[in-house]
């Protein structure tokens, strides 16, 4: 996979998640970060640091991105997002 097609998301604890740019752009905020003109640090480096988001949450968020990318246009009920105890605690 080319480097331009991926983005690195870094959690508060310093864990790095390398995911598809397409998936990351599910979030409008991240989309803005990566596409805003003028070249912010994020756009240039291809990585975003979230000093206020813990690793488990960021991981779940990443999972959500992929899920959303794949299923969001279908009915929710058909493909429920897997929610378990852990998910709840992250909330």
């Amino acid at each position, binding site marked *: 996979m080319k480097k331009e097609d991926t983005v690195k998301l870094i959690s508060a604890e310093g864990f790095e998640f390398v995911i598809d740019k397409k998936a990351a752009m599910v979030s409008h905020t991240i989309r803005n970060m990566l596409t805003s003109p003028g070249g912010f640090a994020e756009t240039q480096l291809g990585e975003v640091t979230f000093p*206020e988001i813990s690793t488990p949450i960021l991981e779940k968020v990443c999972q959500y991105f992929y899920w959303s990318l794949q299923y969001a246009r279908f009915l929710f009920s058909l493909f429920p997002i897997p929610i378990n105890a852990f998910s709840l605690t992250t909330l």
Partner: protein
Amino acid sequence: MSAQKKRNFKIEAFKHRVEVDPKYAEKTWKILEHAIHEIYNHNASGLSFEELYRNAYNMVLHKYGEKLYSGLVTTMTWHLKEIAKSIEAAQGGLFLEELNRKWGDHNKALQMIRDILMYMDRTFVPSNHKTPVHELGLNLWRDNIIHSHKIQTRLLDTLLDLIHRERKGEVINRGLMRNITKMLMDLGSSVYQEDFERPFLEVSASFYSGESQQFIECCDCGDYLKKAERRLNEEMERVSHYLDAKSEAKITSVVEKEMIANHMQRLVHMENSGLVNMLVDDKYEDLSRMYNLFRRVPEGFSTIRDVMTSHLRETGKQLVIDPDRLRDPVDFVQRLLDMKDKHDKIINVAFNNDKTFQNALNSSFEYFINLNNRSPEFISLYVDDKLRKGLKGVTEEDVEVVLDKVMMLFRYLQEKDVFEKYYKQHLAKRLLSGKTVSDDAERSMIVKLKTECGYQFTSKLEGMFTDMRTSQDTMQGFYASQYSEMGDGPTLAVQVLTTGSWPTQPSTPCNLPAEILSVCEKFRAYYLGTHTGRRLTWQTNMGTADIKATFGKGQKHELNVSTYQMCVLMLFNSEDCLSYKEIEQATEIPASDLKRCLQSLACVKGKNVLRKEPMSKDIAEDDAFYFNDKFTSKFIKVKIGTVVAQKESEPEKHETRQRVEEDRKPQIEAAIVRIMKSRRVLDHNSIVTEVTTQLQSRFLPNPVVIKKRIESLIEREFLERDKADRKLYRYLA
């Protein structure tokens, strides 16, 4: 068991770390303010979007939205003031470029600021009824740059100057113009309209009013129109290149008003090159241009149409009342047709076949053709000429074309019944003398008249054809039955004409030579034998004869003459010299006819089979006539005709007119009775109108005549006046 209190499951609100630092807001804002400065200075690459976003997010979350927003306004305003200064400082031509560049920068910066302040835009702005960041940026730009008094006028002047220079033929940077006008449009349509479009239209109006004044002084109409058209196209092109599409209608209407509408009358009436000259000279291109340009302005079409109509009426009137033209009816009609063709073509080529123009053309023709009351006669003479000789060797299609054209003129006639009268006369002459070129053409003409005016109009004409056919059969039958008894006597060809169908004048038959008379009597016996209850009278004034004559040196000629002439010539079989009186007594030909026939026998050079004493042009009562045995001719066959298809002389014309008037009376009466039968009661004026509409297809009845007819009908007790209201008439069944 004590009831255990059931705890409801509850999700606690997410607790942020409460910022205790009182300087927190101040510090965060500093970071953001710094970032905004960096963005404007093109230094954004070191900034972390995430950090800035998070800071803005937190500020809004901690109720510092107001501070953030006002801080943004202040910072941006400050930057824009700086930008304004640098734009103001730009020299001359660089001004627009600087403005354009800064506008680009500002837009980009605004985009970035909007992105990092996205959270504020989404939550704080709507709930506090503030202007969203992007719009705020545009408004600030408008207030600080475009409406800064040093820039505002300069910008407008520069733009207008550039457009003016382009109109004068210089090449300007259209891309730059486009960007600037785009900027004005982005700032809102009111900015574009107030700060640019309105003054632009005003300046354009004065520019074109000046230019058109200048053009009209020095150009002829065609050139002026060319220039106007070019200007119009230029303006449309300009709009498509660098103005708002909505401006097109406005600027073209300015050009139309200044260059066309204001000068329309002057252009159309321009001496030596105006509309009339274009029409005369068939300037299709110029006319088409005029049509297309004038179409754009109100009254444009009617102006062209009015001038064209009055021109047509004027030339047409001159044509129909010119006494020179009246001498040659065929030429007269040909000129009318040419004129119609010419203008048809103009309307077709230059005026887009516009219906209203066609109508104008038609009404003009109708107007002037009816100015001359001899038009029906002349048109019939034209047809006569064409059917006699003009159409010899012409294909069927061409015949149709000619006839169609004649029908078109016929349609314009108001007195169609007069035409019918003359047509009948001419047709009778053609049929009886066997001069018609093509039977098909004759029939086709009749069919056309029939479709135009109905069965009634042509029934008599068709009757004439039938008579001709039956006569042929009769003659065949006659010769078949009398074959044995026929010796060397003259061959007779009789056409039996139904009274009423043919325009016969009651005339006393002349004394036929004995040889002829005997054959005639035989025919009479044969005919009355096969058709009982009929009466035959001889119309000697309408016949023709072929006779063989031997002259002095023994040369033989075949003479083609009229019946009258034949009678005269036969007298010379026994005598060499006869006086006028003697001839008159012997033949009993009416004096006027006799004079004419003697004139053509004795006074026409090359055909003078008789000699007259004394030699003169006119026939006098005491003239003497001799057989001219010195007669020579190159031809074996000599046709001695009284000139045919002449237009009528004054008294004849008068007579025809009277007959027409006479024929109209029963038609008017019939119409009145028809109308009254269905209406029962009607006032005078309504009757007149209805009769007029009913008879319009044949002629225009005179109201005075209608009144007389009504009176006559009252006398004969078809109608009566209402006892209470004298203006009302009642129908008496």
